């Protein structure tokens, strides 16, 4: 298994509170991604990183920010959580562009 650890695995939070999800990798892969998975929508890209301090937006980036200060860590922050951000969040890593991408086990986030 690719060395990807997501934390926390489950979280319940209240509307309006900030939330940070962490993705940690031990593979020294350059690219890291945050996706959300919702019924009927599949996996949708939130943000991705192509190196330390280098990030870009995906198709559903509104309400989310990311940071990558070290190769191994990619943080996803919900500045002010809303119920529409209730979802399962997956981190993925990739060594080179357009090569195999490997996923973490997911974080199940519920915003009440």
């Amino acid at each position, binding site marked *: 298994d690719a060395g990807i650890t997501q934390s926390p695995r489950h979280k319940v939070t209240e509307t309006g509170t900030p939330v940070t999800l962490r993705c940690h990798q031990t593979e020294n892969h350059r690219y890291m991604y945050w996706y959300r998975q919702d019924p009927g929508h599949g*996996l949708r890209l939130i943000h991705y990183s192509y190196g330390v301090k280098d990030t870009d937006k995906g198709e559903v980036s509104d309400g989310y920010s990311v940071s990558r200060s070290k190769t191994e860590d990619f943080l996803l922050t919900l500045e002010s959580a809303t119920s529409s951000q209730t979802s399962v969040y997956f981190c993925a890593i990739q060594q080179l562009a357009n090569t195999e991408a490997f996923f973490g086990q997911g974080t*199940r986030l519920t915003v009440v």
Partner: protein
Amino acid sequence: QKEVEQDPGPLSVPEGAIVSLNCTYSNSAFQYFMWYRQYSRKGPELLMYTYSSGNKEDGRFTAQVDKSSKYISLFIRDSQPSDSATYLCAMSAISTGNQFYFGTGTSLTVIP
């Protein structure tokens, strides 16, 4: 029109059957194709990665790409109850940067 279309199923087959899972796509630039298996409440697990057209075999799994028809398939031979999962297709192109486009997944049940 979605970039990638995948029949959600559900698909139910008897143990030992040959399973065919399919995705169609609209962007002729796609040239990198992946199939993932996702068990309930788990992260997607990479099964197959192929580049451009042709077939690739790995054990009981065969991935097929027909770029002229914009159609990819995953065949599972001698299906087992442990193959019961949701199968996701994904694809990308150099022109799409690091954006992977996913199908919404096909739910498969293999009945003993």
